[in-house]
C-alpha cells in the first residue's frame, strides 16, 4: 500500500474515533463537522488505492476486473436488475395482483414471477414523476402508476400504489379494503403459482405469506395447494365483500363528482377535501366526516 494511503488510513481511524467521542458527548455540530472531514478522507483513500491499482502490471491474477471473488460464495443470490424501466415493473406486478399494493410487496411479486426485482427506495420519486407527467400532459400515456385514495377524505393512502386505468372503485380504500385486497391478491397469486411451469422458491415463499394469514388456507409452507388457498380466501372474502363494496362505491361516486382528473388519480390533501366533504356524516354510506 502506498505511503499516502497508509497515512490516510490512520487519519481515518482517528477521525472515526473523534466522531464517536463527539456523539458520546452529545455534540451534534462537532459530530457533523467531523463526519464531513471523514467522508473527504475516505474518498481520498479510495482514490489513492485506485491510483495504486492502475499502476499494477497487467497479467497479475488480482488486477481489478479480471479475477472472480476469492473464497466461498457468500450472501444470498440477489435477483439481477431488470431491463424494464421501474414504472413497467410496477405495472406488471400491480396487474398481476389486480389490487392496490405497497412497493415492498410489489418488489417481492416481481421477483417471484418476473425473475427480477427493483429497489423500493426509488418508488417515492416515481410517484412524484408520474403525477408531474400527468399534469403536464393528461392521459398522454396508456397508463400511470398512481395513488389509491382513502375513502373518507379522498387523500392519497399512505404507502399504496395503483394503476390509473383501474375503475375508481378499485382505487379507493375503506377500512375493510386492506383485508379485502389482501384476500383478492392471495387468489391472484395462487392462480399465478399454479400457472408456473416449475416451482419457484420465491413464489412459494410469497404464497405462504398469504396463506399463513388466511384461515383454512394451508397447513404449513411445505404442503400448500393453490386451489385450497384460493378457496379459503374466497370464503373470507364473502364475509367482507358487501360492506367493503358499499363503502367503495359511495367514495368513488364522491370522487368522480368532486375531484378533477389529477386529483382522482393522485388524491387531494386535507383542506380542499374537507370543504367538499363538508357535512357528510356516517361512513361512505358510513363515511367518516369530522
Amino acid at each position, binding site marked *: 500500500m502506498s505511503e499516502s494511503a497508509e497515512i490516510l488510513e490512520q487519519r481515518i481511524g482517528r477521525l472515526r474515533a473523534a466522531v464517536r467521542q463527539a456523539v458520546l458527548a452529545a455534540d451534534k455540530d462537532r459530530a457533523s463537522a467531523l463526519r464531513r472531514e471523514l467522508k473527504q478522507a475516505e474518498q481520498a483513500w479510495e482514490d489513492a488505492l485506485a491510483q495504486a491499482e492502475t499502476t499494477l502490471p497487467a497479467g497479475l491474477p488480482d488486477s481489478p476486473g479480471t479475477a472472480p471473488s476469492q473464497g466461498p460464495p457468500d450472501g444470498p443470490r440477489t435477483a439481477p436488475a431488470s431491463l424494464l424501466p421501474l414504472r413497467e415493473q410496477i405495472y406488471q406486478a400491480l396487474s398481476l395482483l389486480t389490487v392496490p399494493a405497497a412497493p415492498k410487496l410489489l418488489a417481492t411479486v416481481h421477483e417471484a414471477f418476473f425473475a427480477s426485482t427493483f429497489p423500493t427506495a426509488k418508488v417515492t420519486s416515481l410517484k412524484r414523476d408520474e403525477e408531474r407527467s400527468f399534469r403536464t400532459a393528461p392521459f398522454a400515456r396508456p397508463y400511470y402508476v398512481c395513488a389509491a385514495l382513502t375513502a373518507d377524505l379522498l387523500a392519497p*393512502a399512505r404507502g399504496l400504489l395503483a394503476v390509473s386505468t383501474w375503475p375508481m372503485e378499485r382505487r379507493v380504500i375503506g*377500512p375493510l379494503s*386492506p383485508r379485502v385486497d*389482501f384476500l383478492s391478491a392471495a387468489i391472484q397469486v395462487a392462480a399465478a403459482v399454479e400457472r408456473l411451469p416449475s416451482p419457484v422458491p420465491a413464489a412459494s415463499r410469497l404464497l405462504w405469506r398469504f396463506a399463513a394469514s388466511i384461515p383454512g388456507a394451508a397447513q404449513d409452507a411445505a404442503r400448500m395447494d393453490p386451489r385450497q388457498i384460493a378457496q379459503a380466501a374466497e370464503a373470507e372474502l364473502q*364475509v367482507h365483500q358487501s360492506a367493503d363494496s358499499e363503502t367503495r362505491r359511495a367514495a368513488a361516486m364522491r370522487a368522480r363528482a368532486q375531484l378533477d382528473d389529477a386529483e382522482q388519480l393522485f388524491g387531494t390533501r*386535507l383542506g380542499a377535501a374537507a370543504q367538499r366533504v363538508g357535512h357528510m356524516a356516517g361512513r361512505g354510506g358510513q363515511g*367518516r366526516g369530522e
Partner: protein
Amino acid sequence: MTGTEAWLARLRGRALPVRHNARTIAALAGNPGCARRAVLDAAGADKHRLAAYTGFPAPFGLSRFAITRGNAFEAQVKASGAAELLRILREHLSLPIPEASYDDLSEVGGNASPELRHARTRGLLARAVTHPAEAGTMFDHPLLTLRVGGRAAYLEPDLIAFQLGGQFRVIEVKSFPVVDGRADGDKVAAAAIQSAVYVLALRDALAEQGIPPEAVSHETILICPENFSNRPVAASLDVRKQLTVLRRQLSRLARIEDLLAQLPPGLTFDLDPDDAGVPRRRPAELAEALRQVEARYAPECLNTCEMCLFCRDEARGGTAALGREVRDDLGGVEHVATALRLARGTSVPERGSELAEAADLLRTAARLRADALGEAV
C-alpha cells in the same frame, strides 16, 4: 400561564420543552424519590443536553441496527392491513372473522400534524364505543395524549385493537425474541410499563367523552418474534400493578409545587445562548444550579436517566452509590467515611442513638474481618 407553569418555564429557560414519550413516562415510575428528576421532567428540560454540558454526557445510545430491525419487524406485522396481526388476534383472542377493518391514523388526509391526528383518533375511538356496529377493528399509529406534570405529552402506541369482548386493547410490537416461550425479563417488564402508560392515556381520552375506563382492558398484547425467526407471536400482559404505580407517580408530579417551593427563587437551567445559539452559561454554574435540587442517586439510574453520570459523581463518598443493599448492609449509614469511622471505633455514637445499632454491626464486622485476614481494618 399559572404560577407553577411560569416557574417551570423559568427553570427550563429558553430551550424548547422536551416532549415526553411513553418510555420517559415509564421511567418516572422507577425512581419516585428523586426531586431532581421530578423537577427536570416537569420543566421539560433536556436532560441529555444538560448532562453533556456539565461534562457528564449520558452513556445511552441506540444502534441503527437495532432500530432498523425493530422498524422492519413492526412493518412486517402491520403489512397488508396488518394481516399477520389479524391472524394472531384471531388465534390468540378469538377475534371474529368479520372484524377485519384497519384504520391508519399516521396521517389525516396526507397531513401529519399531531393536533389533527389526535382529534381524528379521539373521534374514531369514541365512535367505536357509541356506534359498535360501525366500529373499526385495528387502529394503527393512534395519537393519544396524557397530562404529565401539567403538560400534555403526545403518545403513540403501536396499535389499538377493538371489538375484543367489546374492549379496546393496547398492542405493542417489540423486536426482542421469545425463545421457547420465554423472553428477557427486563425487556418484558419495560414493555409492560410502557403499555400501561398507553392504557392510562387511552382511558383518559375516552373519559373526556364520558366513556368508562373499563372500555380499555388492563390486559395488553405484546407481539414479538418467535425463536430465531421473524414470525410474530403474541403474549398477554396484565398491567394492573403498573397502572397503580404510574397513577401514583403522575399524581406526585402533579404536586410539583411542593418541590418547587423549596427551591431558591430565580433558579434556572437556562444555557443562555447567544444569537448564534451558542451557550454562554458556564458549565460549573449550571452544575451548581442543578445541585440546588436534591437527587436520589442509585446505581439503577445508570440504566434509566440521562443525568446518571452527573449524579453519580456527586454521590461519590456516599453509600447509596454502592447500591441500596450495600447501604442497608452498612446499617443505613449515609457516608462511607462515617461507616468506616464507626467500624474502626474512632467514632462512638451515643447509646440509643440512631447510629448506635449501625455502629455495633460495623464494629463486629470489622473485628471479624481483621480476625480472618490477620490485619486491622
